[in-house]
């Protein structure tokens, strides 16, 4: 496509008094009004509320497993619901399924493209999805037979017009949510490859997404190169909330365990916490000595700790409530590109450009 990829760009009829200047003026008035309304509810800060909470003690977090086997930069990883298996993808096109507990490799697939930037484990544990520079998201059913060629059963599900930056299964193996460098997110039916819903609103590449853990399970958040984090309603395709406080690309977004907030990690070297009910940013996790961008973030099970993988090869652990840094973890020999907590919260896994994955506990 030559012009914009957004179909709604076709202009509607312009009313006589509706000039661009008038519309922009209306925008500004509405924005100010919204800010005023939100400011009225802004009666306390997070660290004030957190004063009554006990401080955290010293943490001993070490690398408990190092998974070596990728021949190039590890770009993405995801946990299986069985709490011990993971899938990881790398720049050389390889997607590997590991039993991280025993460090054995269980399956390996070679994608036809390089830079597999997204991978996800299906909720049933029977398939994995991955994609990257091929602009597609493909699903590979896993097999108990070690000799079976997984690539033979590959199913192409999503088709975007630019690279695939993130993908995630919803509550079942039958639907996948994807985000892409073409500025859109999309929901797909795995079996038929049909596009169920598309989400337009980002003005630049969308880099990350996360599904809400709530009871209703109808929303997800996405972050993009336009510095915005948008919350979407999966049913209608509408953007219901938008936050633009970061100063650079948002590399990672993750919901707070209760579903009422989410954290984001950005190239501006900060991680931020956004309160969905109060509709505003409530905390910034930064330090003068942290200059390099955060590539990936995740919460601990209770939401007290925020783990952030950074481009300066380190992992910083933040106290979410008090806003302080609790620990800094060294070990990777290159940029940390991906980080996720295990499903039962007993450990988290970090993947790096140094070709390895590490399990920390």
């Amino acid at each position, binding site marked *: 496509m030559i012009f914009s990829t957004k179909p709604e760009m076709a202009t509607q009829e312009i009313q006589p008094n509706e000039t661009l200047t008038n519309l922009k003026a209306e925008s500004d008035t509405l924005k100010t009004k919204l800010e005023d309304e939100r400011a009225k509810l802004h009666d306390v800060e997070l660290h004030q509320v957190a004063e009554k909470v006990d401080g955290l003690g010293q943490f001993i977090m070490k690398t408990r497993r190092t998974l070596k086997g990728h021949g190039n930069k590890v770009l993405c990883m995801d946990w299986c619901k069985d709490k011990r298996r993971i899938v990881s993808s790398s720049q050389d096109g390889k997607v590997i399924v590991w039993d991280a507990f025993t460090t054995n490799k269980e399956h390996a697939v070679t994608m036809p493209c390089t*830079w597999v930037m997204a991978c996800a484990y299906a909720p049933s544990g029977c398939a994995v999805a991955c994609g990257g520079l091929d602009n597609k998201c493909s699903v590979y059913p896993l097999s108990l037979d070690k000799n079976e060629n997984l690539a033979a059963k590959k199913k192409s599900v999503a088709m975007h017009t630019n690279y695939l930056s993130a993908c995630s299964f919803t509550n079942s193996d039958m639907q996948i949510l994807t985000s892409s460098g073409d500025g859109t997110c999309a929901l797909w039916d795995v079996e038929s490859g049909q596009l169920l819903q598309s989400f337009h609103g980002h003005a630049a590449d969308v880099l990350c997404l996360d599904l809400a853990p709530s009871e209703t399970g109808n929303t997800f958040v996405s972050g993009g190169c336009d510095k915005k984090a948008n919350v979407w309603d999966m049913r209608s395709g509408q953007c219901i909330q938008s936050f633009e406080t970061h100063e650079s690309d948002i590399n990672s977004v993750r919901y707070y365990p209760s579903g009422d907030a989410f954290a984001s990690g950005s190239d501006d070297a900060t991680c931020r916490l956004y309160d969905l009910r109060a*509709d505003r940013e409530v905390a910034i996790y930064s330090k003068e000595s942290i200059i390099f*961008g955060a590539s990936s973030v995740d919460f601990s099970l209770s939401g007290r700790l925020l783990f952030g993988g950074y481009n300066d090869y380190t992992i910083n652990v933040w106290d979410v*409530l008090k806003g302080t840094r609790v620990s800094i973890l060294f070990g990777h020999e290159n940029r940390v590109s991906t980080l996720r907590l295990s499903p039962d919260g007993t450990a988290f896994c970090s993947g790096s450009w140094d070709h390895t994955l590490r399990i920390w506990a």
Partner: protein
Amino acid sequence: MTIRTLRDYGQHYRPRMACLKNVEVFVVEMQDPKSGVKGADQKLNVTIIPHVINGQDVLAWIVTKMKVTTEEAQAFGTMLVAYGYIYPLQNHRKLVLVPDSTLYRFQTPYFWPVQKWPAEDIDYAIYLARRNIRKKGMLEPYEQQHYDNLHKWMNPKWDFIVMQATEQYKANKERKKPDRVVLDCQERAYWIVHRPPVLTFDVVRRTNIFLTQALMRSAVKSSVSLTAFVKFVTTHHNHDPFLTTPVPSNPWITDSDEFWQLNSRSVDIPTKLSVERWVLSFWELISDPRGRVDFKLFLKKEHSAENMAFYEAAEEMRWGAASAIPEKSQFIFNTFLKPGAPRWINIDGRTMGLTVKGLVVPHRYVLDAAQTHIFLLMKKDTFYRYLKSPVHKDMQKRALVPAPHVFTDAQLEANVRNRNPGISPILQWQQEEEEKAAAAVAARPIDVKAMVATNKLDRK
């Protein structure tokens, strides 16, 4: 001299400018003749190299300036070398900061990573500058925006750009008028494709609709929502393995997977911690597979198992394959919704009416209203009765409190050697599907007529 290009095709194609801008502030300070890192002339082989610094001094400067630990300063220093702001004189390949007398030099700003602009931006800047020279104020509003942006970002190169633009303008004047017009059109078309207008009516209109909707939505006071976070953290503190050591032990630390075995879906007696977690909320109860089993047991005793069955069937339809929707909706209607259905669910008339009407043309969200109603019913009523029930109280008494593992070094080593491979999730899934199928068969109502027909009912 290694000049590193920062086209990282990692998560996105563009160089990571934001952090590099901050880094450059530091690098400039480091080179300050008075307060920066001290450099000296150094004789290397035969040549004398001016302004050489050593790793130790760099590290010490970072520690003092940024007030950090040596470890952190080491990490940051290595970043400076990795990105090419400082380069090692001898060992070119290894781009690490070594905190001893290893020699380094500062890279000249011309080669700093930020300078590697994609060619298109330079061309576009020249194009816009040239348009400006021709007729001041001839740029469209969006072009003016682009121009201002480029002027900001490319300031150091601006003289070069204006120079190029002037040259091109002069060369253009030499051309014949028709050629000039054609070239103008071609260029204009090219840039409209590669630098499309940023703001259109539709974008602004959509923003206004979004803002209006945001104003209509009610938000909550910070004191309320923030207190909720604190409450969540506090109630889940004991369940967070990073804050409270899991019992009997964290499998990743001791290499014993007993913790997973005790919390599995099919375990007879759950752990006390699990049971405590189920009490926290209805959602926690049904999210834990073992908890859901317990809840279903209670529902069976109460003879209201159809609610959970309906909820699960509706979830399956909502998240399932598009092709299965007509079949599933038919099954759900026949089993749960139609008058006289074998597992009829008790929802209010209005919701039932809407749902049945919607099922004429089923789509995946057609059961949303009914599903929400049933979920809320279970959450607000059934859940509390469950908590007071003998089933639950009995489970609370019987729940295990596993003793924490105390492994000797030898035992730990043995654990490493004997790590349990566990069951493949594929097998686990197959097992669960078989169980579900068996349960579905068992839940089907007995057809008396059919049994009589096959003489299963002995009437003697």
